[in-house]
């Protein structure tokens, strides 16, 4: 499967200039968890190519292997069979070239908001002044500039997720892997965060893999929506989303084509 999704209208440029981006690919990936109650086949022969600059949404019933897919690209697990690659390199473990945003706010409470964002550069031994500059720029990008010196537990749920996004972006990763990042937020905050994420994606130019259980969210954000079958997870639909990124606003959700696509994906999921 190659990218059939719409390429963003504005050419993606990384925050540090024109960073070289590589495609992410899964080649015949099968993943089995060895559990106490027997083995669990989580992913079954998945082939997937994500081109640089794409925003790929993934929807599927709970337990179908979405997080497993993300974890394989992040390098948290190695596939039982098949290969996961970034460019020409096989992924063998987690690394700063792939940023992860988790569903649960996952900030470190012993660090300030700024220190959390600066952690990636710090782990790579970036000099103090420079990593502070990186953190402050990203905090401004996600609208948290005034909260840089706050404790993480003083932030609301939505702000914590913004901080997580900033932290993942601080390494200027090739791809941002987001596992239901807005799943725990209230509807209003969620919609605002979706718009902010689109802005960030247009500005920062990261490739994004975005897991959600909301078809509407998947369509609103993605240049491409993958639908997965119940476990063992397979990709049963690879749907390009034709709307240009800059036309994604509230009105889009009522657009006939949007509604039609939503129905189509819903049918595929067995919802309709």
């Amino acid at each position, binding site marked *: 499967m190659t990218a059939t999704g719409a390429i963003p209208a504005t050419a993606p440029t990384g925050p540090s200039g024109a960073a070289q981006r590589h495609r992410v690919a899964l080649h015949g990936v099968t993943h089995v968890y060895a559990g106490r109650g027997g083995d669990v086949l989580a992913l079954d022969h998945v082939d997937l190519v994500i081109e640089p600059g794409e925003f790929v949404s993934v929807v599927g019933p709970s337990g179908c292997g979405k997080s497993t897919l993300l974890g394989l690209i992040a390098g948290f697990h190695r596939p039982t069979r098949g290969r996961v690659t970034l460019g020409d390199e096989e992924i063998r473990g987690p690394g700063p070239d792939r940023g992860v945003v988790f569903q649960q706010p996952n900030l470190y409470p012993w660090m300030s908001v700024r220190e959390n964002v600066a952690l990636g550069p710090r782990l790579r031994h970036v000099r103090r002044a420079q990593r502070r500059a990186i953190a402050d720029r990203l905090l401004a990008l996600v609208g948290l500039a005034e909260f840089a010196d706050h404790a993480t537990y003083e932030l609301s749920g939505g702000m914590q997720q913004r901080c997580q996004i900033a932290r*993942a972006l601080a390494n200027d990763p090739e791809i941002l892997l987001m596992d239901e990042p807005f799943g725990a937020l209230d509807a209003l905050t969620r919609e605002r965060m979706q718009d902010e994420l689109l802005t960030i994606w247009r500005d920062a130019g990261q490739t994004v893999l975005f897991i959600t259980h909301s078809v509407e969210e998947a369509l609103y954000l993605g240049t491409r929506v993958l639908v997965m079958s119940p476990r063992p997870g397979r990709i049963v639909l690879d749907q390009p989303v034709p709307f240009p990124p800059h036309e994604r606003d509230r009105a889009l959700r009522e657009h006939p084509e949007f509604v039609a696509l939503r129905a189509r994906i819903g049918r595929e999921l067995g919802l309709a």
Partner: protein
Amino acid sequence: MVEITGNAPVPVPATRARRRLRLPDGAALRVALRLLSLAVVVAIWWIVAALDVWPDLFVPSPADVWDRFVESVTVHDGRVGLSDAYLWEHLGASLWRIGNGLFFAILFGVPLGLLLATVRPFQVIAEPYVNFVRALPPLAYFSLLIIWFGIEDTSKIWLLFLASFPPIALSVVSGVRGIPQTRLDAARALGAGRLQLLRHVVVPSVLPEFFTGLRLAIGFAWTTIVAAETVDGLPGIGGLAWSTKKFQQTDVAVLCIIVIGLAAILLDQLVKAVERLVVPWRGRA
């Protein structure tokens, strides 16, 4: 005795904050209630002693205990304090031993706990021994320690060390095991290597549990100090308490009980204050 049960794992900050908001009457009421209950307890004690139901030897009166207290901090009949040392010297000697024992317990217990929790083969081999030492009553091995290290402070500090390192090590183990996988994954995805993970995520994550273990360890140290000071324990508050049995000075024994109790509570409060300073996020994140 140290109030270790007060350290239930759910210090709900919301209610604490709310209580603090209506602090004026609430706090004043609490202090007043506590003073009142103290007055009642002392009054009952006074009355029971004054009624002479039991001989003075069984129930020394508050006045006797007060007199011993005054003696313990003064020179009287040409003699210094009680058993040739002022009360604070007795207490100081015990605190010195406890402090040393805890120092080595932390120095040894924390790395041991980290190793137990992170190096699987090490845990398989070493954990039974830690549990074995923890299960032993300290007095069981005290005579061995005296033979190995003599009757002076070294053997006492060893005893306190052995009594207090297991809770520290085991609390660190449970702290490490309790770290959610995603918390580790987040740092690994940011590029953390093994040692960076230890330093930036594991150690800070373990701090709350460490303090729980430390307070438990201090509790064990206090229970052990009297045992440690049964042999050549003067000056020492436990040694002083133990020495009263020879001349049946129950008033001195009661004085020691009160001093040990108060010192234990104060030390526990001090550790709690340090914990609030070092782990401000406890119960909030």
